[in-house]
């Protein structure tokens, strides 16, 4: 049977509803991942037990496949009495894994800050929290935002795995459409392009954010390839089936 994408037109509203759900779960997941990444990144720099615990957390969530994490949260937790529905399990799972990958980026961003800056803030009498909020994180994010962007792109791709826990996001609806129309090639080819478009939009947003965060810098963030601070394996992370 020849390639014929017009079979999709009558199912476009179903697919768009799925795409909207993907966008929702991804937006919430990215927000959760960003907060967790910033918190863990700050903690992981420390030497004490908090730092060790944060690094252990990152180690566990980076080395276990995302599917297994999702199955554990959705099927494993109810066994011990914790019930979370598919949507919020998805948000939680994306937040947990994105936080782990992102914290590595934030951590190397923090380690790249010149010590004198932090010392000056201490001498100036700022509290620990104020130093982290006003000095450390804004500077670290300037270098970390691009690699964080790759982590977020990977989160969007990972969200397709949530179709395996009954969440009807765009991959889940596409499976339904494929079995209804008997045209799997057209459906999945369309889906492939749709995800590529979605991740392109995310990376455009990250570029804009990068320019905004670096607007006071001499090179205005226009210098290409700011890979400073990217931990190896982050910029291209597949995140257990994310890519």
């Amino acid at each position, binding site marked *: *049977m020849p*390639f014929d994408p017009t079979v999709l037109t009558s199912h476009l509203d179903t697919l768009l509803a799925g795409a909207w759900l993907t966008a929702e779960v991804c937006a919430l997941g990215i927000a959760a991942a960003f907060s967790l990444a910033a918190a863990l990144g700050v903690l992981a720099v420390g030497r004490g037990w908090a730092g060790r615990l944060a690094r252990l957390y990152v180690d*566990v969530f*980076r*080395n*276990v*496949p*995302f*599917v*297994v*994490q999702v*199955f*554990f949260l959705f*099927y*494993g*937790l*109810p*066994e*011990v009495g914790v019930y979370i529905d598919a949507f919020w399990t998805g948000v939680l799972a994306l937040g947990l894994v994105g936080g782990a990958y992102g914290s590595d980026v934030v951590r190397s961003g923090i380690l790249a800050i010149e010590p004198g800056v932090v010392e000056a803030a201490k001498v100036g009498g700022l509290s620990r929290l104020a130093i982290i909020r006003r000095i450390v994180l804004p500077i670290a994010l300037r270098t970390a935002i691009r690699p964080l962007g790759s982590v977020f*792109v990977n989160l969007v*791709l*990972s*969200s*397709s*795995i949530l*179709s*395996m826990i009954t969440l009807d996001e765009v*991959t889940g609806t*596409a*499976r339904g459409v*494929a079995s209804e129309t*008997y*045209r*799997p*090639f*057209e*459906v*999945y*080819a369309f*889906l*492939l*392009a749709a*995800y*590529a478009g979605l*991740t*392109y939009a995310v990376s455009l947003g990250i570029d804009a954010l990068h320019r905004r965060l670096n607007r006071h810098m001499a090179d205005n963030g226009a210098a290409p390839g700011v890979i400073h601070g990217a931990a*190896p*394996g*982050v*910029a*291209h*992370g*597949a*995140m*257990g*089936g*994310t*890519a």
Partner: protein
Amino acid sequence: MRHAGFTWHDGALLAQGLGVSLGLFAGTFLIGLVLGSAAAVLRHFRVPTLGTLLHTGLELLRNSPVLVQLFLVFFGVPALLHQPLTPVFAAGLTLSANTAAFVYFIAVAGLDAVGRDQVEAARAFGLSRVQLVRHILGPQALAFAVAPLVGLAVNQLQVTSLVSVIGVVDLTKAGDILNLRTLRPFAVWTLVGVLYFAAAKTLTLLGNRWERRLRAHAAPLGL
């Protein structure tokens, strides 16, 4: 009567699943490594049309979910070409192509990191393109690319967990089967997670050792 407890045979099932996961990972990673590097070399020598075509295709592969790629190959290709594929073949094809896409971008960065003057010097000495890649570009690009490649390997090992969806009995599928019989998902998924973690950690350790050997000749950074 129901046999819902864990038995010794479950250990064999998990071990078999782990073997399938590791085998699939090793095979597809090697194929991906070869294909991705070859594509990067083609791009480096600015082969017209083919280079651009490869670049676009690999960019698309890198920016779409592996799950959708698996569905496209396993369900889509047979429907289009009337050529049924076995799950293992479809999984191998998809993961190899996906790995190649990531290797390509790492290899391109590695090749670009080698100084232009070295290439010109090699040309002046009359080295052929094959000799240039083999003796000048290859070794240096590899030393540059080894750290990202180790990271990629750990990721691709985890990506293999997705092939359970199209019916390959890997470690995740073994966990799924075990879960259906014992109805103890908490214990099963914890165990499966621990096994993946151990495999990934071992891979990281091996990778780091290899990286130290490759960089042994380079001067320490003196930080």
